């Protein structure tokens, strides 16, 4: 029977919106669940350490390293959007080691999800090839 691959572009969009969703869509359930849980835990630990104010692009007045980490959070998709929407816009990011660590955690979560987005765009490895194919219509 003819087989076709699930759309990698739709998988990439899903992976960006919800970490791990791209892998789940491609049928790689275990990998998707691990990515979802891991990235969400990392992001939430970042928010716990630095406060919800670390998810705020208005904080881009800091050094270059911090700017990269703040922008990297965008790759977390929905968690970043929710964090951005529920915070108090009048409160700025805190200072100290907790805020710095929180920023690193949330930024690394975004960068890891970027790696996962790139992974769903790549051809699937042999071990997963049977999971990533759906029967062609007709």
């Amino acid at each position, binding site marked *: 029977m003819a087989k076709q691959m699930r759309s990698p572009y739709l998988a990439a969009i899903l992976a960006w919106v919800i970490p791990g969703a791209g892998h789940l869509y491609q049928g790689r359930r275990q*990998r998707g669940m*691990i990515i979802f849980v*891991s990235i969400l*835990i990392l992001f939430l630990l970042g928010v716990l350490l630095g406060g919800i104010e670390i998810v705020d692009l208005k904080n881009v007045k800091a050094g270059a390293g911090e700017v990269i980490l703040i922008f990297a959070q965008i790759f977390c998709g929905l968690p970043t959007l929710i964090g951005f929407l529920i915070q108090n816009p009048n409160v700025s990011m805190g200072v*100290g*080691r907790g805020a710095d660590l929180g920023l*690193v955690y949330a930024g690394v979560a975004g960068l*890891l999800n970027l*790696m996962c987005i790139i992974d769903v765009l790549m051809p699937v490895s042999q071990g*997963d090839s049977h999971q990533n194919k759906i029967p062609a219509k007709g």
Partner: protein
Amino acid sequence: MPLDVPTSPGGLLWALPICLIIASVYKAIKLEAFRWPLFVREVLLLFATIIGFLILVALALLTIAKLAHQV
């Protein structure tokens, strides 16, 4: 409000969760065929490697600092 993270050796323990999660996400992506026992073993191996190299770098920096202090 940010959590108060002390500038003590105990504060460095916050490096552990991030290393573990980096190892697990990397191995979730890179393993050719996914099996739980293999995944757990590979994650622990990568985690131990990262921590091992962090300790090596810390020891090297400590040695350099001590040498610089003596001069």
